[in-house]
């Protein structure tokens, strides 16, 4: 809220930073890997081999990490200037956030933590593994953040200019839109189902959860309307921003949504730590159900998308151990789509509540309901998410359709040619055998010689005819293959582009985890009076929110699997 009074909002900044990284990554379409210096972390047993650049091998692992830090520092510092933050403090803070977060990520990629399959354990020469996948780095970052946030609060205070989990996650979500676009182009049916799940999430969160939480808070916990409405929004919709928007809509005192928000943030962390492991245990055979469920059950953007990322890592790891290799990104995107759909309606909801409050409940003196507040409260980062999604989808959909359509012709033709070639090889071998047999026959075996000669003649005719057919099929295939070249190149460029951008998305993710930990002050739970608020949260969350969310996710996605990798 504070930054909105000064420079641009974190929402808009996330859009610009995310779009900048996305646009630069589009260089892949022009054959230029502009971001090829970005650092990636592989699973390691020797830490000196953990890091490597995307493709600029000359930089070396540490060189690419250093360059990634410097470039991100420059971009984020420009952003901090736009936010009108204290630049000097931001530079120090970002440096601490970046290096601690990246170190946690590297630690999570240690083979004994990350490796999930027996062949990989053999490959790395290790006898045991926690099998948590490389996403364990996120959990480590969260735990380290929680440690500093609760036991060394001075650190969090010192670097607070750069402790901006919402900025980091929203930037990551803008970049994530490109991945969703690529996935939608490749599997439109499944992507559409994910989006329908998002629509259902809106109905669930706003019309069902909100009403139930409000009722419980009012009827059984005797909260006043001023407290019950922001509490219902915080618990059922989207944590902090929904509580604040609702507080504004019903003209609650600012202190009410702020107090509610502080509780929501703490519970979101608890959910983030528990629910992904719960999903791994009980929903590992239903990956899409788990992803959509995370987007709905875990509150706050950061924690929800982060929970989707951890759930994806855990479930893909568990399936990999069983020999099933699913494509990444689907679970994470299911969580993100559900969360983004919910976010989009916060402004509309605040507007509707303001009208209801003013017309049938209580209208404060001088209160006016402005439709403009729908836009004021619209989460602007969604614009970036939709843009990156649409750009990649519009570029890739025709290519993907062409590949599917021509794949229908090319595939059978290729199979036919392969079968004919096998047949021809067999026929040629048969002719060679027959000729050998002919050479071994004695001159007086005239009848047999004549029959064999006839047979060889017939076989040669058949071979010539087959060769002719193969040549014709190949002639038919050649122009089709030429037509496939462009769409194949487009899809390859899209994969390269989103792959490069995703390297930076991963860094924003891990910084989100660390900073969420830093801002989660669990001492709040000991504050007098919190029990009553927390009781409504616990009863609502564990009483119906997670179960209704699970049932609807199940109805949508049971039996639906992400595409297999490769």
């Amino acid at each position, binding site marked *: 809220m504070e930054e909105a009074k000064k420079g641009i909002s974190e929402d808009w900044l996330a859009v610009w930073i995310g779009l900048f990284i996305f646009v630069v990554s589009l260089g892949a379409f022009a054959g230029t890997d502009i971001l090829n210096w970005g650092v990636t972390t592989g699973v390691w047993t020797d830490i000196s081999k953990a890091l490597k650049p995307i493709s600029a091998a000359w930089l070396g692992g540490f060189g690419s990490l250093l360059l990634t830090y410097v470039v991100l520092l420059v971009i984020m510092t420009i952003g901090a200037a736009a936010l009108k933050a204290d630049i000097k403090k931001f530079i120090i803070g970002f440096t601490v956030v970046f290096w601690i977060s990246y170190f946690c990520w590297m630690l999570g990629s240690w083979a004994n933590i990350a490796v999930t399959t027996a062949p990989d354990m053999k490959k790395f020469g290790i006898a045991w593994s926690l099998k948590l996948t490389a996403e364990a780095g996120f959990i480590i970052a969260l735990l380290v953040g929680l440690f500093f946030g609760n036991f060394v609060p001075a650190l969090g205070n010192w670097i607070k200019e750069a402790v901006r989990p919402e900025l980091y996650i929203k930037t990551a979500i803008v970049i994530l839109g490109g991945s969703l676009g690529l996935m939608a182009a490749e599997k*439109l*049916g*499944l*992507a*559409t*189902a*994910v989006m*329908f799940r998002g*629509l*259902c999430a809106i*109905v*669930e969160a*706003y*019309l*069902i959860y*909100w*009403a*139930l939480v*409000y*009722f419980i808070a*009012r*009827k059984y916990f*005797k*909260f*006043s*309307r*001023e*407290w019950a409405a922001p509490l219902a929004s915080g618990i059922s919709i989207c944590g902090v921003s929904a509580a604040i928007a609702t507080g504004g809509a019903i003209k609650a005192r600012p*202190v*009410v949504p702020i*107090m509610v928000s502080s509780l929501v943030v703490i519970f979101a962390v608890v959910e983030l730590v528990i629910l992904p492991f719960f999903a791994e245990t009980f929903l590992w055979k239903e990956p899409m159900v788990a992803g959509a469920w995370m987007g709905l059950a875990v509150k706050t953007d950061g924690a929800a998308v982060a929970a989707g990322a951890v759930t994806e890592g855990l479930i893909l790891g568990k399936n990999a151990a069983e020999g099933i290799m699913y494509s990444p990104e689907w679970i994470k995107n299911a969580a993100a789509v559900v969360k983004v759909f919910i976010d989009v309606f916060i402004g509309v909801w605040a507007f509707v509540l303001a009208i*209801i409050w003013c017309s*049938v*409940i209580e209208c404060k003196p001088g209160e006016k309901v402005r439709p403009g507040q729908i836009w004021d409260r619209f989460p602007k980062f969604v614009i970036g998410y939709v843009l990156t999604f649409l750009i990649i989808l519009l570029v890739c959909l025709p290519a993907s359709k062409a590949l599917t359509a021509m794949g229908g012709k090319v595939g059978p033709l290729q199979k036919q040619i392969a079968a004919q070639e096998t047949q021809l090889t067999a026929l040629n071998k048969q002719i060679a055998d027959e000729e050998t047999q002919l050479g071994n026959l004695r001159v007086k075996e005239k009848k047999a010689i004549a029959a064999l000669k006839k047979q060889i003649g017939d076989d040669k005719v058949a071979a010539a005819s087959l060769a002719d057919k193969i040549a014709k099929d190949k002639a038919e295939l050649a122009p089709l293959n030429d037509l496939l070249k462009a769409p194949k190149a487009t899809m390859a460029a899209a994969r390269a582009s989103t792959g490069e951008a995703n390297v930076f998305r991963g860094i924003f993710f891990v910084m989100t985890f660390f900073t969420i930990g830093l801002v989660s002050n669990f001492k709040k739970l000991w*504050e*007098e*009076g*919190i029990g*009553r*608020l927390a009781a409504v949260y616990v009863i609502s969350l564990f009483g119906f929110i997670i179960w209704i969310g699970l049932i*609807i996710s199940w*109805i*949508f*996605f049971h*039996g*639906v699997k992400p595409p297999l990798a490769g």
Partner: protein
Amino acid sequence: MAEQPKLSEELKKMEWEPLLPVEKKLISYSLILGTVLLGILVWVSYTFFPTGH
């Protein structure tokens, strides 16, 4: 700088307000509308976009 208000004090200040009939009505409408819309969305998704299921 003004001291931050304490949660316990704020909660003590809160006065009890009975649940108005209009609030009950709005809660009921919201739940009914939500359930109906969910049913419609699930039906539309299964009927018109079956490939995802």
